[in-house]
């Protein structure tokens, strides 16, 4: 939703015209692969004209895409990477201006393509895989019909041979029992299966090029690993892949060449290994440093701007004192169709100690968010108990709980929907102060203090959260959570929707606040790297149960359980660039059906 805004906002500083000449002399790093490039792009510029003003969103972009090669474009929201992908297939969008010295697909200038040329090219020669298969697939049609249509439109075979081909394709992308799956609608498939079905339809006509725009962003790590393996296999068959991603570690797994984009310009390019292990540009270095994980524990993700002061490493946290939050044998069941009850949370126990962080990690549907709701007493457990600051919490009636709610606060995943749409920042923060918090002047002062704590200025007070960036919104959400001076903060996927550099800033902020205010965090995330970075102790959840628990390093570096090992093994790492990607094979697809 805010994506388009970000594109425009971030593109503003680059409002200049395309420099024409130098791109021709551009040295393409590591131009090794044999053969004729499928895509040749030189000096590409894309601009949009809106309300009479011209905005340049891509400038002077050049690359060649060879057979069997993967070129990755990496950048944050608004860097122009998705616009580039759309431009290559002639779908730049309304009011756009495309300029280039060369923009060729298989030797032909795509700017001269007629509508008919595009119809013959898209789908048949260029396959497209988009981020969210749920919106890319028609919810009312079986996925088999979706793939069949791609074949039919390009006049492929008879009805019977197409039906066979559909099953074959689904099988080839690792969809178990493809005949059955072909008859199901996209809503009946899990996220991973949907994404595979989408890849199957992109591969249906044996395209020469696959353009994958954030193909794994919406997926859990184990599924992500499967999809990346699938794309790697495709690449080995000689298909060229243009991979668009914000995630350097995903790119590391697949790319031969990497282009790092920022504000519509390429700031760094080179082989995957060069860029990831020996980045030259400050921005690339900052991006790589901002990725949280094992190596970033106890350090700041964003280096201080002036570089004068070394990043302060927080002192080792004090030995565990009394638990501030305790869960014992929590069980929560939900009714499902057919009078059955699904157990969302099954016998979960943990203790969170003062000033420490307990991470809960798990894939979607593992019960981690339900656990958060139980801890916040937004829903009552069917069995078990939560105690807060040593007193009964989940078992007391809500009116008695209300006065004590100030000691536990939450930061939700999507800050925007967590604010009343009619309110500005000032109203949101004033509302968070506990009743009887002094007179008007005292409250106003406290609001400013809260803003200062989260690194925001007073100028945001009269603004609606709609007019703030994603990072600013999450800071306001954190400020609101701090309003009642809680001792426990529940962070439910609180940084998951943010760009990696913004995420790094927010994680640093949370670390500072923890140290200054002695907060205890219950940190819930699907992102293993984030959990490893922030947590003292970790719970790994699967199907409502805790499968493994221990200190962060024990769980992530020396996992005991098979599931944890699979999770950790699926995690793409920057170091993967050093590994030969061709040795990875399609991992098991069991447990993926729904």
């Amino acid at each position, binding site marked *: 939703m805010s994506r388009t805004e970000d594109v425009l906002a971030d593109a503003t500083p680059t409002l200049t015209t395309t420099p024409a000449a130098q791109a021709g002399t551009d040295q393409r790093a590591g131009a090794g692969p044999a053969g004729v490039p499928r895509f040749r792009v030189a000096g590409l510029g894309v601009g949009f004209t809106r309300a009479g003003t011209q905005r340049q969103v891509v400038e002077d972009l050049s690359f060649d895409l060879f057979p069997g090669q993967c070129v990755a474009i990496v950048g944050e929201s608004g860097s122009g990477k998705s616009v580039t992908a759309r431009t290559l297939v002639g779908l730049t969008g309304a009011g756009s*201006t495309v300029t280039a010295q060369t923009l060729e697909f298989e030797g032909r200038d795509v700017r001269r393509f007629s509508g008919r040329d595009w119809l013959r090219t898209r789908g048949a020669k260029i396959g497209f895989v988009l981020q969210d298969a749920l919106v890319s697939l028609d919810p009312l049609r079986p996925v088999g019909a979706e793939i069949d249509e791609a074949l039919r439109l390009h006049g492929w075979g008879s009805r019977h041979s197409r039906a066979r081909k559909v099953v074959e394709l689904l099988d080839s992308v690792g969809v178990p029992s493809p005949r059955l799956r072909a008859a199901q609608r996209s809503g009946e498939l899990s996220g991973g299966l949907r994404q595979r079905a989408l890849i199957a339809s992109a591969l249906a006509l044996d395209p020469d090029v696959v353009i994958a725009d954030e193909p794994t962003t919406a997926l859990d790590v184990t599924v992500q690993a499967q999809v990346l393996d699938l794309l790697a296999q495709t690449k080995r068959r000689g298909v060229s892949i243009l991979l668009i991603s914000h995630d350097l570690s995903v790119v590391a797994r697949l790319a031969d060449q990497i282009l790092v984009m920022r504000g519509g310009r390429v700031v760094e390019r080179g082989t995957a290994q060069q860029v990831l292990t020996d980045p030259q540009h400050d921005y690339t270095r900052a991006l790589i440093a901002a990725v949280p994980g094992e190596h970033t524990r106890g350090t700041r993700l964003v280096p201080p701007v002036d570089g004068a002061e070394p990043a302060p490493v927080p002192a080792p946290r004090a030995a565990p004192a009394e638990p501030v939050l305790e869960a014992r044998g929590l069980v929560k069941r939900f009714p499902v169709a057919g009078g059955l009850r699904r157990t969302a949370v099954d016998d979960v126990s943990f203790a969170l100690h003062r000033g420490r962080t307990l991470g809960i990690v798990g894939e979607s549907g593992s019960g981690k968010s339900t656990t958060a709701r139980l801890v916040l007493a*937004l829903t009552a457990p069917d069995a078990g108990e939560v105690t807060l600051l040593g007193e009964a919490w989940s078992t007391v009636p809500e009116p008695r709980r209300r006065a004590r709610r100030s000691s536990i606060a939450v930061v939700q995943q999507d800050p925007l929907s967590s604010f009343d749409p009619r309110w500005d920042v000032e109203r949101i923060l004033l509302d968070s102060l506990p009743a009887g918090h002094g007179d008007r002047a005292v409250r106003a002062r406290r609001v400013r203090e809260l803003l200062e704590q989260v690194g925001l200025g007073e100028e945001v007070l009269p603004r609606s959260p709609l007019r703030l960036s994603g990072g600013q919104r999450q800071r306001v959400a954190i400020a609101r959570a701090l309003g009642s001076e809680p001792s426990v903060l529940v962070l439910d996927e609180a940084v998951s929707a943010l760009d990696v550099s913004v995420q790094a800033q927010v994680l640093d902020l949370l670390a500072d606040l923890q140290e200054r205010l002695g907060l205890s965090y219950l940190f819930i995330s699907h992102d293993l790297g984030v959990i490893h970075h922030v947590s003292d102790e970790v719970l790994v959840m699967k199907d409502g149960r805790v499968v493994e628990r221990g200190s962060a390093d024990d769980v992530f570096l020396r996992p005991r359980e098979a599931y944890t090992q699979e999770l950790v093994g699926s995690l793409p790492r920057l170091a993967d660039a050093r590994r030969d990607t061709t040795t990875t094979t399609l991992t098991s697809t069991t447990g993926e059906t729904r």
Partner: protein
Amino acid sequence: MTTVTTAAPALARRRTRAARPWTLALALLLTAWFAVSALWPHLLAPDDPLALHLDSALAAPGPHHLLGTDEAGRDLYSRIVHGTAPSLAIGFGASLVSLALALVLGGLAALAARPVAAVVDRLVEVLFSFPSLLLALLLVALLGQSALTEAIAVGVGTAPGYARMVRGQILSVKGSPYVEAAVTLGHSRTRILRQHVLPNAVRPLVAVFALSVGQSIVWASSLSFLGLGVAPPSSEWGALLDAGRLYLTHAWWLTIVPGLVIVVLALTATTLGKHLQTSLERNDR
């Protein structure tokens, strides 16, 4: 270097249609006219609307009588101007009744304890299964004929649809993350209801109200046309329409003109409502 510009005529056209300021200007102008004729009808039509001029009965529209006269020689223009007040009163009254009822029923269905909510839900569904006009007819039959009962009848007739809407609005706000956030801040149920649920659930109804006024006037006119509205000497537009029906073959203006006025008023209210809705939505996004 070649330049390719992709224009998007479809999108551009849609944007202008959404804005179109002249419809708003026209609607505001007409609103002003209707307001003056409702509040100070003598400014626009100084003649007595009920004065009989039997010598010029059923005169066609012309210089003497701008919109013609009826069977008793009453000037149609004056009657329409003086009929604005009762017509608008019924329209607004019916809308108020309708939305008040919808708020109560929808609010109960969404917020009350389960047994109460279930009963209210069923009641609304039963009311919903009656066509609105039939429901209104039933009420007029029960309560007798008058401007007040007409407003109540139309209001009750159209309430079930709005009640469903209010219920849905309240439920969606109640389940929203910002209400959840307010719960975790330790706010009481009544505070959350007053601060978040009601304002956010009622806000879209502002536009619905404007739409509903236009619709109610049409419904009220239909009742009058069926002879179940305000008694004949009144200049209420539906009643005019009903009276003119008898002379349709040789005095078309008696039917067509009040009919057109009703249409124009309904369109005006609808246009205002639409603009209100888009401006509210624009503030939201």
